[in-house]
């Protein structure tokens, strides 16, 4: 098992406040690591720092052994890092199909196949493939943001609250798909408020509190050990 995504000694501070404080974690290929924590614990800041949208101090940040720390976000993405931002950042003026296509490099043939693959994952989107993204409902835009990240076939995938605004049926489909892509060998780092749902598909869990790792371990044991976890998430 390769250590696909490797983060060591990562810190983020806003002004004087330490949002992420010396966090280290690794996500091996084929594994889902759930990143849990109360609101403001530092989950989003950590993910934004990993993809490079947030300035951070870091000892080591590597994907598949390749150092990312000095690269700008687009080069990190090109190196195989996928990111689903919190808050539905889709290209409003492009159609659903175009939103997915822009994320894929390469020849038109394989591209069409991959778009079709994504539309099969989200039947709601398939029905609206030709619509401009601003016409989608909030939940549909969230699906599109996930589809766009998946379409790149990243080697490591960061997701910031993917279940936000999704109906239970769709959230369940998305999470089972996440399990599926991890099983294909991709490293998945999943920040999520819905702890039960995230733990159900995760192999490991890391709980942040005030920017530090407060608890980490096997996801299955953690779901059983509810009290300690709930205290940290409150």
């Amino acid at each position, binding site marked *: 098992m390769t250590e696909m995504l490797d983060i060591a000694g990562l810190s983020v501070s806003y002004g004087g406040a330490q949002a992420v404080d010396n966090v280290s974690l690794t996500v091996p290929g084929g594994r889902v690591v759930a990143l849990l924590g109360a609101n403001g614990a530092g989950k989003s800041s950590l993910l934004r720092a990993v993809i490079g949208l947030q300035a951070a101090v870091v000892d080591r940040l590597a994907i598949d052994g390749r150092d990312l720390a000095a690269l700008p976000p687009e080069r990190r993405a090109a190196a195989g890092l996928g990111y689903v931002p919190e808050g539905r950042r889709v290209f409003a003026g492009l159609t659903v199909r175009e939103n997915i296509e822009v994320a894929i490099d390469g020849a038109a043939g394989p591209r069409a196949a991959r778009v079709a693959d994504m539309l099969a994952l989200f039947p*709601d989107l398939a029905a609206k493939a030709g619509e401009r993204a601003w016409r*989608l409902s*909030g*939940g549909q835009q969230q699906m599109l943001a996930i589809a766009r990240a998946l379409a790149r076939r990243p080697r490591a995938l960061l997701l910031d609250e993917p279940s936000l605004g*999704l*109906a239970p*049926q769709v*959230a369940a489909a998305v999470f089972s798909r996440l399990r599926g892509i991890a099983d294909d060998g991709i490293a998945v780092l999943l920040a999520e*408020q819905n*702890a039960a749902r995230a733990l159900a598909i995760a192999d490991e869990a890391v709980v942040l509190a005030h920017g530090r790792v407060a608890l980490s371990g096997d996801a299955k044991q953690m779901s059983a050990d509810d009290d300690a976890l709930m205290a940290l998430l409150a």
Partner: protein
Amino acid sequence: MSAVPAPFAVFMRGPAPLLIAALAAVAWIAVVGDSYALRLATLAATQALLVLGYQLVFGHAGALSLAQGALFGLGAYVAALLSLHAPWGVSLTLPAAALSAMLVAALVGAIVLRLETHYFALATLAVAQLIHLAAVNWEMLTGGANGLPGVPALSLAGMTITRGGPMLLLAWSLFAIAAWIVARVMAGLTGLALDLAREHPPAAQSVGIDVAGLRFTAFVAGAGLAGLAGGLHAHVVGVVSPDVTDMPVMVGCLIATVIGGRRAVIGAALGAILLTHAPEWFRFLENRHLIAFGALALAMVIVAPDGLADLLATVRRRLWPLPERTSGAVLAPPAGVARRSVALRVEHVGKAFGGVRALDDVTMVLAPGEAVGVIGPNGSGKTTLLNVITGILPAEQGEVRLGTESLRRRPAFTIARLGVARTFQHAELSAATSVLDAVATAAFARSPRPPRDVAGAEARHWLLRVGVADSAALRCGALPAGRRRLVEVARAFMARPRILVLDEPGAGLSRAERIELARRLRILRGSGTTVLVVDHDIDFLAACVDRLICLERGRIIADGPIETVRRDPHVRQAYFGRDDAAAEP
């Protein structure tokens, strides 16, 4: 950081040092300056008035008008014509110059202010060109390309204000008065309302702010200052030619606004002084002096991208730090203000986007004080329903009634003033505004409008009740998504609603935080507020509503007690899918 005595820091951070510096500069020029220096410093004041006006239009209202320069020229012509031809002459030229520019702006604004950004810019450019063409071609009135020479000095109440020292003092005094008025207005809730209206118009309307009216007022007031500046310019220079209506005036105004700062009044003075004086510093370069000025302007924008005023504020904050205010007065709203509970009726409402029926014959009634939850698959029309109720989208069929009042064809801000407050799926808060100010903004539409500190004290009350008081001093942009939604809930309560409409308030919150929010919502609506909540978390809804409605493809497929809807086979199939775990208690 060394310990600075607090009173000294307070003094240095206040307006006094700036005023002393400004007075010293004016006095120094008046005493030792030659006539050219006096004239230049006086022209800087007219430029500062022009920029102050443009800050209202561009900085505060966010409208990229390209007519500000032409309105300045209009004021110059009006002042020149009156002082040359009208018998009652030179005392009234300045008010007339300001009023004529306001009149033209009101006519133009009524038509073009509803246009989107770049179309608005083009429309105002066309107006500017019309004014310029009139100045060049209407020779009988304007003297054509030769202009109007021999504009006399200004006289006030029979006293002539000669060019030189007296004119310098008058020009900067006028700027000081105008800047003081603008700064006072912007320090109140109006400044906050403009910030929200500029950055998040739907959110501004949702707390009763008349966005279009506010933009119009700022546009006309900005034009008044442009006209005043133009009139003053005519008297200072003594001759008016079509140059005063031409594009370079507008470009100069834009440069000075960007270099000085878009919103702080001190920025108008700094930008104007730099624009009028800097080219003089490079005169020794002869033909190349404008290139040098261009390089300087570019350097300024790179060093201080938010303007010199912002740079100055940052330096003063660093040099004389003041302890951050973490707490303050808390004021509960007076007991008498709770408005009577009211019913909300949605009757046969329909709405389509292109060929898709987002809402199809939706009928529902919320009894006074009742709390109802709405669930449904993604894209089933939940947010559209909230947008139709709050007036952000017009319904194509049917009717929404608040009590006996029809909301049909009412603008969103008037619906908000009737007592409908809402939150948004993706929290709409100005990133640079503090949490406390963001909530206080909702008091802007109240009549009478409370002072900002009173509104702030009540805002602190609602932040406490919603459970985010510890974030009061933070910028909204620094908050995690879940907390931003809670700030919106507090802002909605600040609007003292009769109907509270919440779009996924629990999204982004942990389970424990959602349970806490549901508990607090139950307490808060105890006063009789009717509540409509969209959310996907059925446990959250069960904890804060009395009844559940399920939408699918724009139609209501279930409506009733929570358990009944939760067990409805149609709902289970459409909404929960095979994920039965989520449906079980």
